[in-house]
């Protein structure tokens, strides 16, 4: 399948969350979504939107940096992973990554660039977030997603 890249500009945290909700609402289950971008670029806020678009309680979606995996059981089983503290691809895989993927699951991976070899065989949706100002972000989405 040919993947296209769509670009969005978000002017606030709220806009980022709203975009996430729109993405979440289109998911069919089975997707693996990579969220990359520097510290503070809005990865967790976008994940919060995506999970709420799938019916999770938005307030319960927070950063998994320390715990490494948050789980939200809503329309699908949402596994919200953060590779920030993963010291190796093997350690990332030891989080149970392979078992998370499935037709009734959506896997969100923050800092996916750190563990790319683990994603080689997968057809991921890639989202890159870039700082354009204190609150402005350029959000690029590549993959099979109809928004």
């Amino acid at each position: 399948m040919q993947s296209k890249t769509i670009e969005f500009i978000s002017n606030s945290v709220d806009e980022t969350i709203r975009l996430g909700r729109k993405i979440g609402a289109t998911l069919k289950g089975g997707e693996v979504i990579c969220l990359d971008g520097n510290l503070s670029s809005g990865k967790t806020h976008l994940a919060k939107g995506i999970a709420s678009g799938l019916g999770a309680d938005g307030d319960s979606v927070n950063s998994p940096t320390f715990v490494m995996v948050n789980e939200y059981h809503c329309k699908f089983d949402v596994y919200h992973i953060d590779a920030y503290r993963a010291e190796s691809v093997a350690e990332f895989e030891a989080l149970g990554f392979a078992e998370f993927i499935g037709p009734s699951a959506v896997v969100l991976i923050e800092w996916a660039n750190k563990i790319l070899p683990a994603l080689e065989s997968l057809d991921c949706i890639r989202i890159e977030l870039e700082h354009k100002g204190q609150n402005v972000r350029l959000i690029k989405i590549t993959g099979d997603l109809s928004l």
Partner: protein
Amino acid sequence: MDNEIRILGIETSCDETAAAVVCNGKEVSSSVISSQIKLHEKYGGVVPELASRAHIEKIYPVLKDAIARASILPEQLDAVAVANRPGLSVALIVGLTAAKTLSLVWEKPLIAVNHIHAHLQSAMLEADALELPAAALIVSGGHTSLYDCRNCLDLKLLGATIDDAAGEAFDKVATILKLSYPGGPSIEKAACNGNPKAIQFPRSMLGKDSLDFSFSGLKTAVLYYCQGNDMKAPSRVNSMSENEIADIAASFQAAVIDVLVKKASRAAKKIGAKTILLGGGVAANSALREALEEMAEASGRKLLVAPRKYCTDNAVMVASLGYYKYKAGMFADMGLEAKASGEDSI
């Protein structure tokens, strides 16, 4: 006659593999935390990187050590308590499996403990008297939560972080300032020489009645400041003087503490708290302890803070809470599962 109730506690919810034996909920017979013992030297072999957070290689030596240091035989234990939620599933499962196995083999009851609730036990451990209700604040790398504590088995979640935990904000700001890991102690150290009023960083209060927390905007504000208000420019941190770094660290720390103290005060008023409880890794921060002490004193409340050695993840707190569940007859069965979420389940 032996009237003591001895509980073995097991903790594997995140990075630490820990086991402890506690008598009557308060007397610590042993406390073993994997990062604090030299497993390699003691047991030979190397803990592979793969398992660094998987706990599997550590659980047996840690348990063995905890029993040995308590100088007891397994027969003298009364129950096995384990933190089964919330946390990282693959990590929780290791402690849970060990607890179930020991419970079955030793024929001792199994007790399920909420990891965050257990953190509060650390604050109560060395207190002679505890006046309730208490507004209880848990602040760590993974959690920032406020509870209405009627007693250690009657806790209601009042608020929690909606993005980053306070401890995570410390770590990420330390990264921005190119300070060493872990960020908590390095920010605190740098802040000692800085002016907490040098920079007015935002305090996100989320509305006047909210007891939730948000620290990601503060993290962004620090980053933006260090970029010289230009996100595309290189970070200014490398060319900053030590004084400037100290001012940023102190101003950031003051913003976090301000929010924590105000929310704790708000919660205390709301529930008519007689006591403020503080636990979790960030509870080791001296400036936070002092600010909460001041707030508590000014409002006629008592502050109880976890001793520093029990601020970060440990199993003493699990065994201690396990004791009160034992007394209340709250036992789990072999169907007990690990749960990633569940800040609010007793």
